[in-house]
């Protein structure tokens, strides 16, 4: 099988979309936070928290959609913490975000260990199943790629459209974008800078947690320590790559998913000559290269990282 052959198989593109799904949630979440002027480096920990909380809720009998709700609320909670620290208190977004990542990760690990003290192999749940839509899923190529994904992939794609619509086409979205560009102007309009920024961070963090939940509730059926494995940081890189646009963010996540799916297939092709770790490195290396390529052209939201205090110019 040569390279072209791989690119033409439906299983390849199905895998690419599957790998991209958690990143789509994460990129959208990070994008909303940053559009409002707040970098959220809590993302890596919020992924872990969403993965653990959603899984645990399902394990305890909440049902899959209930689990997603629990995951989103968990993400919103850590987002609120980050929002309080960085918006009204105006503390360093870098340090606060890293603190949230450490905190959310250790809360998740401690909770998992405490809830399930003596398990040797991680217990499993029944995860989201592929939606087998009659007729459509039998279509050649398109069927397996699009119509045999789980409901969470569809949720992610729908959210891309929703986030785009809210940010670009509604007054609320305009206010969120303005608060990340020129908070003084928003304040002059009589809108609350604090409320807009905090709301955006809370909502964005809830989305990040859904990305984590995808890992335990759709991609796998159990929770593992270290399973997030840098996906959060990759999302932060993808947001810059996507110039803070939801559509481009989707494209970036899909490209990333395609590269990742490709490296797995190449591994089986040339694995005898090249150590498997070379392939494992590729996603991270690609993220750095993408960042370097777009960095100079990137138009950061102008008030990103800049705290704003009422009555203080």
């Amino acid at each position, binding site marked *: 099988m040569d390279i072209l052959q791989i690119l033409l198989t439906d299983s390849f593109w199905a895998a690419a979309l599957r790998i991209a799904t958690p990143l789509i949630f994460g990129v959208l979440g990070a994008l909303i936070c940053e559009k409002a002027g707040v970098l959220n*480096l809590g993302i890596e920990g919020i992924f872990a928290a969403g993965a653990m909380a959603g899984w645990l809720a399902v394990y305890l009998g909440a049902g899959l959609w209930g689990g997603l709700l629990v995951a989103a609320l968990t993400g919103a909670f850590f987002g609120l*913490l980050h929002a309080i*620290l960085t918006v009204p*208190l*105006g*503390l*360093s977004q*870098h*340090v*606060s975000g*890293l*603190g*949230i990542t*450490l*905190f959310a*990760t*250790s*809360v998740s*690990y*401690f909770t998992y*260990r*405490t809830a399930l*003290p003596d398990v040797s192999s991680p217990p499993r749940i029944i995860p989201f199943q592929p939606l087998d839509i009659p007729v459509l899923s039998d279509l050649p190529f398109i069927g397996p790629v699009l119509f045999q994904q789980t409901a969470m992939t569809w949720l992610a794609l729908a959210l891309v459209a929703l986030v785009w619509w809210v940010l670009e086409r509604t007054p609320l979205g305009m206010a969120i974008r303005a608060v990340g560009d020129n908070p003084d102007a928003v304040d002059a309009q009589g809108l609350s800078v604090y409320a807009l920024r905090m709301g955006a961070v809370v909502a964005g963090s809830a989305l990040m947690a859904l990305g984590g939940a995808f890992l335990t509730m759709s991609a796998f059926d159990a929770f593992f320590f270290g399973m997030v*494995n*840098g996906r959060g*940081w*990759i999302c*932060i*890189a993808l947001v*810059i790559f996507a110039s803070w646009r939801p559509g481009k963010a989707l494209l970036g996540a899909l490209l990333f998913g395609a590269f990742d799916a490709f490296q797995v297939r190449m591994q089986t092709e040339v694995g005898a000559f090249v*150590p498997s*770790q*070379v392939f*494992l*490195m590729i996603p*991270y*290396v690609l*993220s*750095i290269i993408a*960042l*370097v390529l777009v*960095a*100079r052209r*990137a138009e950061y939201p102008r008030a990103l990282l800049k705290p704003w205090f009422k009555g203080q110019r």
Partner: protein
Amino acid sequence: MIRIEPREAPSRLLTLGVPVVSAILALALAAIPLALAGADVFAAYGFMAKGVFGSVFAFTEMLTRASPLIFTGLAATLAFRAKLWNIGGEGQFYLGAMAAVAVGTGWVEAPPIVMIPFILLIGAAAGGIGMAVPTYLKTRFGADEVVTTLLLNFIILIFLQMMLQGPLKDPMGMGWPQSAPIIDQGVLPQLLPRMRIHAGLILALGLAVIAHIALSRTVWGFKLRAVGENAAAALHAGIGVKRTLMGVAMVSGALAGLAGVSEVAGLKGYLTNDLSPGYGYTGIVVAMLAGLSPLGVVVSALFIASVFVGADTMSRAMGVSSYLADLVVSMSLLCVLIGGFVARYKFTRVTREAT
């Protein structure tokens, strides 16, 4: 209504008091997860104290654990003072350890007086290069160093696994992914008989003093702080900002690299892919808890090491997960952040007419 206004300069009492109160508060907050886990809270704190102060051995174990944290804490401190966000301490730690193992397992042999400094130097250089690369990408292309250093941590960890299954693999290691042991001439001297504490601690303490002097008394330290406080003004004043940042990056990476050398040549003797339980990331907490002061790093490293060693003992005795330690460490970071806010502002009660 409460009015909040910035202070001219935080008082000395607050500067010292805030981290202490934050650390104690974080430790006290651990009571909540302990109680939720159904443990006897007082007994748990008792075991934690015993784990640190219960015996000479326990105390030296704490000091042993503090050594790498002083190195990584200093690495974060110097970088953060220049507003260079080096979150890559974990990767630089392993680069240092890998370099030490590459040259220290028999490739060259020399008496300890030459061999030990040689290994330290090579490890420091590897760590320094590990931070110089993302800093170059930042100054040349504007690529955000937070993201690149974080991603490099993962790349380096995968590279480490590749090395441990390939060139660095111990041929006598029964197939385990671990390196050959550092040769005897390269092993850091033990400080006390029958204890694990080693000369890495002395080196770390010495570097903390040097870092303090360099930061507060030298032209280099002045430039570093000037770049951190206001890069535009520093550039205007004729300070080579990019050059300064590259210099800070090398030193910061070198310090994190030395942590790796110290662990591999002082404690374990050989390299595995779990040599560091996140020392690079914890170094950031150490630095923040120290208020980015090199001497403060020593104190906060001792505190964080006590939390880890104490929680290990408590966990073994009571069966509560030792992730409690990570919980306390992360909470102390959040507490000291909030404390820093309290210290920087004056809170005065004012009537509505007065505003």
